[in-house]
């Protein structure tokens, strides 16, 4: 019934209808993509972890392994379904020489394994369990992605020749965030290599029932079994696998929320303008007895058409981009079995977007109720209350140029009209500043200290070797005499028993030494200073149920001692469960040591690192920068790229929105423009009124946007940063960029857009527009 009116209306406002459809389509596309990705990602992870039979509980252990003891535990434990011990042969990256690259600089713990027999399989890219022949080498996927090597390449590992036969998916260690990488070789080759590296054990369990995981974990710990290394459980494997793609999905969702908001703002503006245009007609319709719901239907149906058009378009578009975005997931996890479910979920999410729009339009249309027929017919325009412009009279203005004054007065007088653009601009300022601040924060040198890593120049790890304390002392001696080193600290990690309040026992790893030299950031409290203080990592504090000021009972040198929790810090190293203290206990075994040092001359970090690496081949020596770049580099650089993309997108949207808004405004104000022209205002002067309107709105938006970015934005960014494992942080803001360059860029963009958007002012003829 409304077909003709709707068609005419849409055709009459082509530009605006089109823009609205585009934004709706973009929103629908993004939401649908996010839904499809979530379904596929979870599906693919499940498929991968099912096929690979990922262990439910894994204890890494370096050092001797007491097999009979372990077997006895397994025999008695009722939870266990399957059990195995795999070997992971650590080989220094220097020894792994690909045709074109070597892994000398790799911070990953690269190790060699054979295909396991029972579970925790290494899969090929088709998801099948790999059988490997002598002389063949299967390489972790990440080295294919970063271009280190390709199939058919020759590799020398500790002098032995291999050919890259393919790449492998490792359900445990796929992610770059997992610090170890497994290479697969045949049993014969493994035997030969075994002499050349140090073995670490992966003690793995599959349980009959995953829900018994916690109980099993406690049982394992209390049994006092091998525990020299991190413990990882099935849910954690899942999280690690999901993290990087999960972040992409989170970004897509965030952007889609913004786009939905902009679509809403477009709709709101056109709708309000339309209502104002039709004010008299609406009044007449009410006067002749049409119900509000009937009048609403006319308007609603137009937006229903636009929303359907946009949503269908968006849904179709999501199929175009789907494969591109799924590429990474498919590569690392393989196909998901949820494809058809993904389709359904995509559809449901698009439907959700559609309903939200209709609901929104409907709520805006509720304004009809407020229209008084008498007033509408008499004045033809809504008698907006001029709330802000009061006492802001031209006759009292001595300060501002008349046109600037009129511009500002108009904004204050018609706040509701400008609220739309204002809100969009605030959002845009937000999406320019927050990713940039986030990028600044995580790329700042300081950032490692939020992740439990002291801010030093060079880090030496001494582990998986015998006589750790002797070797540590040897290196310390050299460091003391090295004039290039300005300061260093030895931190030794040992295991201690904690007596819990409920009488049970837990074991924790405590890093002993002076923690004030290269401090980490504490989310609460401070570093331990006296012998009776201890600082806990966030995860440990949670696991032990302790907060700052609480007492913790430790078994030190065979005696129970009470230590006060003095601080809590976030940590991503060693599975996140660490502690720091300054007491000494020579009776406990050293699990590993690290030596953090600072150089006098920062430019020498690389050669010095190399020199120490060559001299102490039993230790792992890395520059902190290299460490950070390799662990987080990819993420940091993609956040960097994303932040620049955000700026570009924001500026484009700013142009689009401003031009659109100005065009609408000029069309709406054509009568006033004609009047002013009749009384001798030039087009230039009238345009300058519009420029001052949009610049005024923009400036307020920049102020609010910046404030929001530094408060709310910090919370959002905090969520992202916490996914790195850092729980508390402060924004590192580049004031020149955030407070000078970006606002300036926005102002210039909006200025240009306003000038383009108000070109129509010149074309408005007095004679045609002055008669009402």
């Amino acid at each position, binding site marked *: 019934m409304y077909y003709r009116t709707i068609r005419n209306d849409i055709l009459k406002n082509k530009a605006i209808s089109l823009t609205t459809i585009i934004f709706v389509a973009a929103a629908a596309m993004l939401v649908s993509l996010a839904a499809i990705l979530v379904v596929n990602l979870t599906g693919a992870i499940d498929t991968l972890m099912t096929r690979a039979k990922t262990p439910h509980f894994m204890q890494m252990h370096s050092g001797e392994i007491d097999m009979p003891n372990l077997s006895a535990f397994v025999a008695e434990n009722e939870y266990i379904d399957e059990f195995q011990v795999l070997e992971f042969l650590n080989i220094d990256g220097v020894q792994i020489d690909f045709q074109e690259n070597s892994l000398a600089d790799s911070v990953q713990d690269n190790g060699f394994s054979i295909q396991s027999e029972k579970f925790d399989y290494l899969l090929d890219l088709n998801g099948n369990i790999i059988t490997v022949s002598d002389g063949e080498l299967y390489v972790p996927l990440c080295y294919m992605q970063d271009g280190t090597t390709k199939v058919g390449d020759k590799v020398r590992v500790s002098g032995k020749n291999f050919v890259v036969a393919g790449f492998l998916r490792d359900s445990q260690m796929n992610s770059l965030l997992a610090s170890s990488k497994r290479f697969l070789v045949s049993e014969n080759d493994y035997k030969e290599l075994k002499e050349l590296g140090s073995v670490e054990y992966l003690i793995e369990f599959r349980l009959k029932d995953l829900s018994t995981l916690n109980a099993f974990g406690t049982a394992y710990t209390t049994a006092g079994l091998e525990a020299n290394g991190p413990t990882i459980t099935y849910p954690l494997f899942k999280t690690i696998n999901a993290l990087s793609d999960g972040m992409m999905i989170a970004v897509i969702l965030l952007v889609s929320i913004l786009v939905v908001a902009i679509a809403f703002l477009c709709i709101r503006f056109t709708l309000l303008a339309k209502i104002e245009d039709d004010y008299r007609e609406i009044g007449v319709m009410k006067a002749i007895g049409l119900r509000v719901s009937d009048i609403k239907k006319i308007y609603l149906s137009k937006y229903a058409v636009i929303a359907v058009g946009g949503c269908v378009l968006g849904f179709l578009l999501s199929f175009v981009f789907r494969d591109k975005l799924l590429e990474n997931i498919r590569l690392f996890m393989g196909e998901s079995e949820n494809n058809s479910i993904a389709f359904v979920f995509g559809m449901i999410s698009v439907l959700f977007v559609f309903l939200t729009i209709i609901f929104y339009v409907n709520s805006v249309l509720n304004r009809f109720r407020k229209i008084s027929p008498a007033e509408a017919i008499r*004045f033809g*325009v809504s*008698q907006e209350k*001029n709330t802000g*412009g009061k006492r802001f*009279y*031209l*006759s009292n*203005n*001595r300060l501002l*140029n*008349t*046109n600037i004054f009129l511009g500002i*007065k*108009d904004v204050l*007088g*018609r706040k509701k009209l400008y609220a739309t653009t204002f809100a969009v601009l605030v959002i845009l300022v937000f999406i320019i500043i927050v990713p940039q601040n986030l990028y600044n924060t995580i790329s700042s040198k300081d950032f490692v200290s939020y992740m439990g890593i002291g801010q030093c120049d060079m880090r030496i790890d001494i582990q998986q070797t015998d006589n750790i304390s002797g070797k540590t002392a040897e290196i310390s001696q050299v460091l003391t005499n090295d004039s290039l080193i300005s300061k260093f600290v030895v931190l030794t990690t040992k295991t201690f028993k904690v007596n819990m309040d409920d009488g049970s026992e837990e074991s924790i790893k405590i890093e002993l030494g002076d923690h004030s030299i290269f401090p980490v950031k504490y989310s609460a409290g401070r570093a331990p200073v006296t012998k009776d203080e201890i600082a806990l990592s966030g995860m440990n504090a949670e696991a032990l149920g302790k907060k700052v000021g609480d007492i913790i009972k430790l078994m030190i040198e065979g005696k129970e001692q009470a230590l006060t929790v003095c601080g809590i810090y976030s940590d991503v190293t060693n599975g996140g469960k660490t502690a720091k203290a300054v007491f000494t206990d020579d009776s406990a075994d050293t699990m590993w040591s690290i030596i953090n040092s600072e150089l006098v001359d920062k430019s020498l970090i690389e050669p010095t690192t190399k020199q120490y690496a060559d001299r102490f081949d039993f230790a792992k020596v890395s520059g902190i920068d290299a460490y950070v770049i390799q662990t987080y580099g990819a993420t940091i650089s993609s956040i960097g790229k994303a932040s620049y993309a955000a700026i570009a997108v924001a500026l484009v949207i700013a142009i689009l929105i401003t031009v659109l808004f100005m065009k609408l405004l000029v069309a709406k104000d054509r*009568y*006033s423009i*004609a*009047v*002013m*022209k*009749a*009384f*001798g*205002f*030039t*087009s*230039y*002067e009238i345009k300058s009124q519009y420029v001052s309107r949009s610049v005024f709105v923009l400036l307020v938006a920049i102020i609010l946007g910046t404030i929001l970015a530094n408060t709310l934005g910090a919370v959002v960014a905090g969520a992202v940063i916490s996914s790195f494992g850092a729980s508390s942080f402060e924004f590192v803001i580049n004031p020149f960029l955030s407070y000078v360059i970006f606002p300036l860029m926005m102002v210039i963009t909006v200025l240009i857009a306003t000038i383009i958007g108000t070109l129509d002012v*010149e074309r408005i*003829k*007095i*004679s045609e527009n*002055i*008669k*009402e």
Partner: protein
Amino acid sequence: MNKIITCENIVKSFGEGDEKHNVLDGVSVEINEGEFVSVMGPSGSGKSTLMYTLSGMDHVDAGSVNFDGKDLSTLNENELADLRRIKMGFIFQQPTLLKNLNLLDNIILPLLNKNREKSPEIKERARTLMKRADITELEERNISQASGGQLQRVGICRALMNNPKIIFGDEPTGALNSKSSNEIMNLLLEIHRSGTTIMLVTHDIKVAAKTERVLFMIDGKIVGEHLAGAYDESRDDLKAREDRLIELLAEMKF
């Protein structure tokens, strides 16, 4: 006598191709300085269009308009705007006031545009004019808080602010009842007597009868004029002037 406006053979057309028609079809008019002229004619005859072209708000397709010694076709948009701002004043049928300014601000707006530093004097002048138009108490009100007649008087005050050489009025009393219409006309007469040239478009015989010269327009052409001479209340001849006009209009079959 000095001519403030001379136009010769102006043609103005709208539409394209078959639709095209001349709304002004070779109009020549001269208006003397200090004159009070009115234009009468049936609806659609081109009266408003004539006024827009004479004031430079619209361009002519042929012919020339000379305003105060300047050929309007040689002026660019900005120079035309300046001319309107300095030398002309306009009153329209509907009070064309800006919604978001109060009445005083509406009056001073055109003048303030370029003379902000003189704001106190401008305000003073506006108050004087408002007093003359008997709307002193409306200063701070909004458009929605005044009657049609009051708004029209605000419009007249605005038109007078720059002390224009000529005032154009397109049916300034068209939307008013006869009482308000009368008051507006008296105000205009008073302004005219102080030396301002006025050109009015009107349908109202009562209004036209008070002007010095009446031009008749039909289908884009001036088809005649009536020289009534200056109106003087003391002579008490308004009824006679009106009757004469009615006669003439009947002759022209309006």
